[in-house]
């Protein structure tokens, strides 16, 4: 530190002032250090993100994070040491009730122009920020087939919410029943509604070989608009009606939408009867169950 303007004893004019200033310790070596450390820091940030997502061992992504943060700390330190004078200053202490001193020393400015160094630092910081965003992707698993398949498999019995397998006769004329795959009660995407329509009224696009007794049809109960349970059956026009947004589906025509915001039919469950006379699934749904996904 070199004292500025002699001994600080001469400060009694009550004004803030710089009392010592050391010029920046910039050099080509210093610049090279900043560039190298920034590069290490940015690379470390990327390695952290990629290794974390790839499920690499803790030592790799943890080490990359540690190295990149320490390298950036070093680069920041060298940057300020190389570009800014180290300034010591004094200012009068405001007594209680005084206004804060209106004056201040001049803003300490950087010495010389080194746009590359600042860009390297900011770039490294941005890459580390990007890497640190990687944990967000860990929050949920990869969707895979989870949205394309349901719990229904060939030969699974349809059971009520109590777990009782059901026979075609259990659904009266004009009646409906909520059923599930055996052992998968309340598995949301597998919810099915059985409807008894007037015999012979079902016509394509209803798949007629999946209609039992010429009148009993199974549809996905999950609305294709926003996923509410399509819980209401209007007997006079054999319509399924969604209480959330009023989408209406014609059960005699493959549950095609006839009103409201739903754009897609409720998928029909391939259904048959087993040797003991219970209703069974012949397969999973053939069409996409529930709302669209991007």
């Amino acid at each position, binding site marked *: 530190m070199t004292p500025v303007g002699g001994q600080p004893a001469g400060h009694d004019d009550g004004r803030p002032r710089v009392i010592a200033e050391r010029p920046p310790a910039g050099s080509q070596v210093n610049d090279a250090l900043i560039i190298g450390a920034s590069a290490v820091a940015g690379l470390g940030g990327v390695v952290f993100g990629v290794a974390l997502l790839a499920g690499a061992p803790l030592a790799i992504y943890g080490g990359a994070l540690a190295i990149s943060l320490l390298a950036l700390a070093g680069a*920041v330190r060298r940057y300020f040491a190389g570009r800014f004078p180290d300034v010591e200053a004094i200012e009068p*202490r405001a007594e209680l009730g005084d206004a804060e001193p209106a004056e201040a020393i*001049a803003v300490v400015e950087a010495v010389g122009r080194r746009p590359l160094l600042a860009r390297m630092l900011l770039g490294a910081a941005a890459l580390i920020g990007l890497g640190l965003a990687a944990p967000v992707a860990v929050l949920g698993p990869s969707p895979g087939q989870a949205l394309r398949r349901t719990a229904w498999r060939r030969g699974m019995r349809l059971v009520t919410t109590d777990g009782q397998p059901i026979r075609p006769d259990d659904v009266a004329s004009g009646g409906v029943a909520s059923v599930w795959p055996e052992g998968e009660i309340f598995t949301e995407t597998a919810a099915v509604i059985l409807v008894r329509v007037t015999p012979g009224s079902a016509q394509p696009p209803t798949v007629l070989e999946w209609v039992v007794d010429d009148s009993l049809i199974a549809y996905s109960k999950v609305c294709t608009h926003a996923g509410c349970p399509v819980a209401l059956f209007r007997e006079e026009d054999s319509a399924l009606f969604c209480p959330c947004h009023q989408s209406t589906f014609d059960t005699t025509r493959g549950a095609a939408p006839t009103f409201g915001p739903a754009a897609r039919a409720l998928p029909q469950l391939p259904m048959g009867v087993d040797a003991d006379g219970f209703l069974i699934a012949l397969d999973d749904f053939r069409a996409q169950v529930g709302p669209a996904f991007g």
Partner: protein
Amino acid sequence: MTPLFALLLSTLDERLRLRQPARKTLNKVFPHHWSFLLGEVALFSLVMLVLTGIFLTMFYRPSTDLVVYTGSSALYHGQSLPAAFESIVRLTYDVNGGLLFRRIHRGAAHLFIASIILHLLRVVLTGAFRRPRELNYHLGLVLLLLAFALGFTGYSLPFDSLAGTGIRVAYSELLSFPLVGDRLAFWIFGGPFPTGDVIPRFFVFHVLLLPAIIGLLIAGHLGIVARQRHTQFPRFGIDGHRWVYGKPLWPWQFAESTTLVLWLGGVLAASALLVPWADVTLLGPYRPGIVGNNAQPDWYLFWVEGALRIFPPLEWDLPGVTIAGTFVAGVLLPGIVVAGLAAYPFIERKVYDLRGDWHVLSNPLEIPLRAGAAMGFFSFLLVLSAAATNDILSLMTGIPVETITVIFRVAALAVPTALTVAVVAYSRRRLRARGLEVGSSEAGPRRAGDPAP
């Protein structure tokens, strides 16, 4: 500055008029010393705690209901575990980065409390608590107690066997309050230990109540520092009571803080590779009636634990009330410790008849009362802390744990007393040898009791 950035700045400035206040803030002079960074370390540790804590909260399940773990840890696969512990096992073995963030969180928690304690030590030893800063000193003490609570609830949440045992001891401490203990314990636990309510409630304390209160108090703490300005060490030729000297916020204070936060992040990440912080999956879940050896709390509660261990057996059955040793050693004694810390600024002011405001720090050896009190006080806490390891010391040395406990009973009284007497005598002699009076090292011709101009 790129034109786009300059445009953004001028657009903001036209609306918010920030250029003038910003310039003033950038030029504000901050007293400069490495020990002034301890509080900043605590602040940045808290930032790390919040960031990693958000990630952990996404996976943690605050419940003690039993669930079956079906993940990739062979040790626990297929086992029925308390849901809280199960989610910790899942975080550790089945979530990418889960173990890293758990360890950084635990490491940052240790650092948070350690840096607050060192910050307190700095404030006490140098006299930064003196008028007009008593209020902020007390705010800091409250923050330290809240940090203990934050640490203890966090330590409890995994519901491993040590955590459950720690909760049991805390429950017993609450029970020991005379007259209201049973009610107090049931209010906090929602019934007799271990109710299903304790973990959900500790979770709310840990992630919502305590962080919110701590955040508000820190804002107040820093606001008061900004208003009163930081204290500073004496400097030859400058009257520190009239002038603030140090470095302007821009660039060096800014550079230092930025470097510090990066450095801390890097060190914590490195520590996660080297130190098995928080590997509670090795301890197993809490099951009532089962605990292993080395049942210690986290280090910052060793002093309370030590007091519990060496306090003589006591249970007074008075008419209508029972005074138990757990209350005296685990509640009353810590209460006296905190009250002593809180009262000290006023005691020193009274004893030396100090008046006026004090902005310049001092060497504790120049104030014999402070040197003696600090030495006695912190050595007492250290001996108590050491007493919390009596079982481990016994195992290491072969001396029976009973003998070690008796030694600690004597040491807890004798060591602080002897050290206090020695330090007071030394600092008095030192003052005499230099021909000084208390407080006379303040810059200028000021003596003890002189007000700041």
